[in-house]
């Protein structure tokens, strides 16, 4: 069958007649949420942010008001972590907004999606890996700041520095843990987005090829 004869069949296809039901269906669609992958990712992100706020707020107040004020530094740690997380979520949200340009020509839209999705996954990987040494460092600073000071008798008894306070101990734990987290993140990101990126790249290659 030639393409020209397919054209004849194609033009003979009729759209269903317009009905009030169709009009109502379109109106109902306008009020619905998008089910596109990018829209779902945006909603998940907002959900994670709300969950974080719900989890961290009681912890903040607990350490701020409890323990006779001895652990207020932990409450500020939670504030710092929340601020870092919100910056992270904000950046991801920005990238997701950049991903969809449906009014662009097909090729430009696909190219934009691939670039933005790669930026998104790179940011995800970097931030997810950097979180580990950052938390380590903050925890180490807090523990060291809470250790008895050098003039106290307790410190003298513990001298030399106990193994669990030694920066070297923390460092030998941190390096392999950061490597492990990096590879776990990379595997997870590839599982979530790898196939999608490959598919988009294949489509772009097909558009570009002659």
């Amino acid at each position, binding site marked *: 069958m030639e*393409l020209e004869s397919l*054209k004849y069949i194609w*033009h003979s296809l009729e759209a269903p007649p317009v009905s009030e039901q169709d009009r109502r269906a379109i109106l109902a669609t306008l009020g619905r949420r998008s089910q596109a992958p990018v829209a779902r990712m945006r909603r998940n992100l907002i959900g994670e942010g709300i969950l974080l706020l719900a989890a961290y707020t009681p912890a903040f107040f607990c350490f701020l008001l409890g323990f006779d004020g001895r652990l207020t530094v932990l409450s500020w740690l939670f504030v710092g972590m929340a601020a870092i997380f919100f910056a992270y979520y904000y950046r991801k949200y920005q990238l997701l907004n950049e991903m969809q340009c449906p009014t662009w020509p097909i090729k430009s839209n696909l190219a934009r999606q691939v670039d933005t999705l790669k930026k998104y996954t790179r940011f995800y990987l970097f931030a997810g890996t950097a979180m580990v040494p950052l938390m380590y460092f903050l925890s180490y600073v807090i523990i060291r700041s809470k250790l008895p000071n050098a003039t106290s008798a307790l410190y003298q008894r513990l001298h030399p520095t106990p193994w669990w306070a030694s920066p070297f101990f923390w460092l030998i734990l941190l390096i392999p843990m950061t490597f492990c987290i990096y590879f776990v993140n990379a595997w997870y990101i590839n599982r979530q987005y790898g196939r999608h990126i490959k598919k988009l790249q294949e489509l772009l290659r097909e558009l570009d090829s002659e």
Partner: protein
Amino acid sequence: MQDPAIQEAFIRLVSEHRGMLYKVCRLYCFSASDRQDLFQEIVYQLWRSYPSFRGEARISTWLYRIALNTAISGLRKQRRLITSVDPGRLPTEWHDIQYPAEKEEQLQLLYAAIDKLTEVEKALTMLYLEDKSYQEMEDILGISQNNLRVKMNRIRDKLRKITKADTYGIGKS
């Protein structure tokens, strides 16, 4: 954007062009529920982009870009209920339209052939079947007219082979 006048204008626009939108959904989705989902998603994307449409492109170009972008880059997981194209089971009616038996058979051949094309080839084929000029196709797809001509020739050959194989069983083991 809840202005009733804008909503009405938008609904009129979608109603006028729903034939084209249904064809896009049929090309890119196999099951009726997937087609329904894609149609809703296209309408949603059109609605979202409607306020920013200033007439820089033709309305048909704008519509095709959104519909095809949504269909192609949505990359939905399509659960194919049958693994080989069985003309007897291809849905050909849209809503309640019933076609005469001869036309049904032709439609089944049409969809069976187009179903075997890639997403990009489907888009090109659709635009060609809709009598779009190469200039318009270039505006919608973003690829050069030379490239389009080469691709269309390949698609013609491919469709010829597909329809010959389906009709005469050539190339099937």
